[in-house]
């Protein structure tokens, strides 16, 4: 039971049209997350992380690939058929202020899902709200306050309370810390860890910052321009990063010793509108060879549980 895969994503694709152009936002992304574990999804801004998140919770429809949740393919389920699954997965966004309807009191925001899913009596709902607020560290007496009356950290706690309200097993955190002060970030990470322990939650934790992911994740997926370039358990990835992109990312993670950066990341990421031929990273890759411009590398298992998409490494 413990090792069972809760969510599995296979060859996920998503294209957006922007005028005449097509944005290759997500291209052939596959990964699994085991129940009770955390997958950290890392990549530069614009690499398609949020799109993956939105695809998984079916906020948008896929253009290819499958999402399998607890053994059920939910990729094309109708909204009605999806409803029981919606209860089981939730999302926490980056900006808590915009995630909370300013028109509603905090209590209502949390209670709303009990109403949507027709759970409990009025009194029970009230009680649950209070319990939830307490659980995320908000004084329940503030349940009639409006979101703007809270600080950013408190607001994010409320978002988390909302996410766990239905006892969902799977929670996507899409850069939940990015808009918060560093001191608050640690508290929220702590809260997420505690909740995971207490409730056995499974997380997909998205960040553009490897350092943040390091704490929480069991395994890590690195995304570049809509594609997964490396996937591995945390330990392997940090001790033995393989993909040149991951290496550059790690080098920009400040280490306690303040070591010199090994490699510098050159230039801006190319646009997902016209992704480069061959390996998407080739224009910026320090180890680029001819083949990298011609053939697109595919994700291959190099050692056990360590996947990389790189011609050089694969050789």
């Amino acid at each position: 039971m413990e090792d069972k895969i809760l969510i599995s994503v296979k060859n996920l694709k998503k294209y957006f049209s922007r005028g005449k152009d097509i944005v290759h936002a997500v291209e052939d992304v596959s990964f699994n997350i085991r129940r009770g574990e955390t997958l950290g999804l890392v990549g530069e801004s614009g690499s398609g992380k949020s799109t993956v998140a939105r695809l998984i919770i079916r906020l948008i429809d896929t253009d290819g690939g499958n999402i399998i949740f607890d053994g059920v393919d939910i990729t094309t389920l109708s909204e009605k058929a999806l409803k029981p699954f919606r209860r089981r997965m939730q999302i926490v966004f980056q900006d808590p202020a915009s995630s909370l309807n300013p028109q509603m009191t905090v209590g209502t925001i949390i209670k709303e899902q009990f109403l949507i899913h027709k759970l409990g009596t009025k009194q029970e709902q009230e009680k649950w709200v209070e319990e939830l607020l307490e659980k995320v560290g908000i004084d329940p007496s503030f349940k009639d306050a409006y979101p703007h009356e809270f600080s950013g950290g408190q607001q994010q706690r409320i978002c988390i309370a909302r996410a766990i309200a239905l006892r969902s097993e799977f929670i996507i955190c899409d850069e939940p810390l990015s808009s918060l002060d560093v001191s608050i970030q640690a508290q929220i990470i702590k809260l997420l860890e505690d909740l995971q322990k207490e409730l056995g939650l499974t997380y997909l934790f998205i960040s553009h910052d490897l350092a943040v992911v390091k704490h929480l994740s069991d395994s890590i997926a690195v995304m570049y321009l809509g594609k997964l370039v490396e996937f591995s358990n945390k330990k392997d990835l940090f001790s033995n990063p393989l993909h040149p992109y991951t290496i550059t990312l790690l080098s920009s993670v400040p280490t306690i010793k303040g070591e010199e950066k090994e490699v510098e990341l050159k230039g801006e990421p190319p646009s997902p509108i016209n992704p480069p031929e061959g390996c998407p990273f080739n224009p910026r890759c320090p180890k680029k060879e001819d083949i990298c411009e011609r053939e697109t590398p595919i994700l291959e298992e190099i050692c056990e549980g360590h996947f990389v998409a790189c011609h050089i490494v694969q050789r």
Partner: protein
Amino acid sequence: MTQYIIKRIGWIIFNLLVLSLIAFILIKNVPGSFLELQILIGQAGTMGTGLTISEVEKVRGVETEMMKRWGEDVPLWQQYLTFIKGLVTLDMGPSFRWPTQTIEEIIANTFPVSFTIAILAVTIAIIIGIPLGVLAALKQNSWIDYLVSALVMVVSAIPNYVMAVFVIFLFSFWIPILPTYGWGQPKNYILPVLAMSFGPIGSIAGYMRTSLLDALKQDYIRTAWAKGGTERHVIFGHAMKNSLIPLVTILGPMISHLILGTVFVEGMFGVPGMGQYFSQAAGSRDYPLMMAQTVIFGLILMIMNLIVDIIYFFLDPRIRVSRR
């Protein structure tokens, strides 16, 4: 809240004083006078050959007498004080151009008409414009959206006198059920209100569309979908209310504008509103009416803003509830 309103009203009064003083100075310094223009008219009606300079000079003899009658024979500051006194005691004397009607009478007779018409037009605009905007936003980039957007552009670009002729053709000729002109019966309201509502329908629909699209992009909407909320729940429970709030801000100026800016529609359909009095006031140098116009204009605008702010206060918890 009461304290806030009292403070605001105090500001309105202060602003009105400043406004009227500036207006007074400007008005009195514009070249030309009512009398000058009347000579012009009298002349056109009788001699008008342009050779009547001596005639004109003779008429000037009456000027002093008229100045006396209009209270213009005293220094400007005294005239201004008289105006303020008249304003406070609601006794502003007769208009120059409408000599047997006092300013108060004119306003008392015409304001309710203009106001009713404006409110009706805005109501219609809201009833039609909001659903149109919502529809366009929900079906973004569909043909409905394009249709609504085109409609918004067309009705905002077409001046309301063209709309006036259009509704006359529609309801007086093609489907001849309404009179083009007249006042006194409920049916007389229909065409002017309709003609006036087109512009507002356009702006409300357009505004609604953008603000709903904006709201729909918010993360709380995404969360609501993710929670399994239905369309009705997400759009009407979450997005609508938030996108309606900014709409309130445009309603204030819109209503003020309609109350005051309906000259053409009034003239076309025979609506005895303020617009026709005011539109001719400046052109004929009818100082009392010009002053009244300025004050009324300022007053309506500021009161509308106050009302909007009060409504805002009740609608938006971010303003209503102060930070704990």
